[in-house]
């Protein structure tokens, strides 16, 4: 397996992670690194283990074998809420908003671990600049938003924790093409402002276009890795995921 690990020490590092749902093994020795200012894409088909990888990093489930470190600190068995406090935040698959809370309260929930009121207000403003639609919908219940607005809110909510690492699970799923453009542009903006991003996508082309590096997952195994450009050009990837 060719690895193109970043020269600098990795912010997040998964080493040989095995994960199970009951008796079913979902991840087989997955090793992934994310560097200080990277966008890293995790691509693969349905059921390949992309979401499981993110759930394992977030501590919603724990690896049976292998280790996960974040900023040099071991977080393999750390509980989910403590991982958030360490600075890893996820916008989960299916958005998972709080449907009976207003948009603004969903954003406030994103800042649950923080106490600095001024910083929270500042980040709220930043989210509204990124997604002006959310400002218009501020007092609406999240469950009544359109799909695109919900996706914006999910990303915005994740940003409200001021994460050191942002993980996005299928941010373009079910969105109109024009919104997909907006979302990917926003992802690059967030990254340019200094937040590393681990991006899970079925839309492999778009993901690899914005990613510095990428990993290809297949039935719980990392089968290929390289820079975004390398993977886009790889015949295997093209055949399997890009429909070429």
């Amino acid at each position, binding site marked *: 397996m060719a690895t193109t690990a970043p020269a600098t020490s990795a912010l997040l590092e998964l080493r040989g992670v095995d994960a199970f749902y009951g008796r079913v093994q979902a991840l087989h020795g997955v090793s992934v690194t994310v560097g200080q200012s990277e966008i890293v894409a995790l691509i693969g088909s349905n059921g390949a283990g992309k979401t499981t990888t993110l759930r394992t990093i977030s501590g919603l489930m724990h690896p049976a074998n292998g280790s996960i470190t974040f900023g040099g600190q071991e977080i393999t068995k750390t509980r989910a809420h403590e991982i958030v406090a360490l600075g890893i935040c996820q916008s989960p698959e299916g958005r998972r*908003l709080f449907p009976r809370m207003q948009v603004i309260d969903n954003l406030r929930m994103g800042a649950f671990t923080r106490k600095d009121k001024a910083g929270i207000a500042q980040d709220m403003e930043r989210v509204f600049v990124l997604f002006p639609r959310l400002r218009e919908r501020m007092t609406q219940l999240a469950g*009544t938003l359109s799909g695109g607005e919900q996706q914006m809110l999910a990303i915005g909510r994740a940003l409200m924790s001021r994460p050191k690492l942002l993980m996005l699970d299928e941010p373009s799923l079910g969105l109109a093409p024009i919104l997909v453009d907006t979302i990917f542009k926003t992802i690059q903006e967030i990254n340019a402002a200094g937040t590393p991003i681990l991006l899970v996508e079925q839309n492999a082309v778009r993901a690899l276009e914005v990613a510095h590096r990428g990993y290809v997952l297949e039935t719980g195994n990392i089968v290929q890795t390289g820079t975004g450009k390398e993977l886009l050009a790889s015949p295997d990837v093209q055949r399997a995921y890009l429909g070429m």
Partner: protein
Amino acid sequence: MGAVGEAIRRRRSDLRSGLTGRALDVGLYVLILAFLFLLGTRVIEHGPDYLLQIFFFALANGAIYALIALGYTMVYGIIELINFAHGDVFAFGAFASASLIPLFGLSEGQVWGPFTILQLLAVFVVTMLLCAVLNVSIERIAYRPLRHAPRLAPLITAIGMSFFLEGAMFLWKGPSSVHYPDVLPDLSFTILGARVGVKEITVWITTIVLVVGLALFIDRSRLGKAMRATAQDRDAAQLMGIDIDRTIAATFFIGAVLAGAGGIMYGLSYNTAVFDLGFSAGLVAFTAAVFGGIGNIYGAAIGGLVLGLIRTFWDGYFDSAWSDVVIFAILIMVLVFRPTGILGMRVPEK
């Protein structure tokens, strides 16, 4: 009200528009009207003073049911489990406070002053804490280890816990009703010909304070926000940095605090307690929670009040031997005709 809520409502009205559905609806209305007619004749027969008297009792009973119902509905809201042991926590509150009252220097027929009020407050606080510790332990022992198990498993341990607690209280105080010290002063006022005693006033005021306090707590506090978030989406709540184990334990804690207060006030009002008190009171309170829309705390408060009215009016004007039957009948009717309760959730979940 999103598209999904609209679709559900349309589907439900489709189901009900069939001939059987309509016949059922008509049957329900006929039943309610017949009952109201019967009640009306009895009310006229007994005169207005009696009606007002029953109404005041009903408000006090309803307040106690509301306090218990809140615990059912909060726990259901957060982990979708009916904590069948909850009624027994209420009964434990009555038993524990019966023992604490003499311990804190209160006795029957004493003179009341500011210090006695403090003593009674101390009984309240200690009892509520004991109930809270009990309920949190129940969650820890019987529900938390089964959090990822099929839903039937914690339901069975809940019933087991209920039997266990009833058994423990049976061993503690025996099979028959025990006397609960009658410590409240025997003062009363006459309002429009009906008697309102210190007992009723104590129940009303305490309940209002607790329910308003609960509403503020859930709406404003950090833990309250964590509880709302956990109730709406447990995984998402964890991803916001919420410690859901602590949040769930806090929900059991608060539910038990309210039930404990209810237990004390039941004892103070009726001056009797029995080991399986939690079963009958729990049944009414559970029905109240379902009536109001399980998971909805305002629904539980209103449901408790309504069920208190129904039960007290039934006991006052009809045969109290049948009141459990009436409560069960209401439970079944709510589940058939309005499974989401009168204030059930109507916003789409996802």
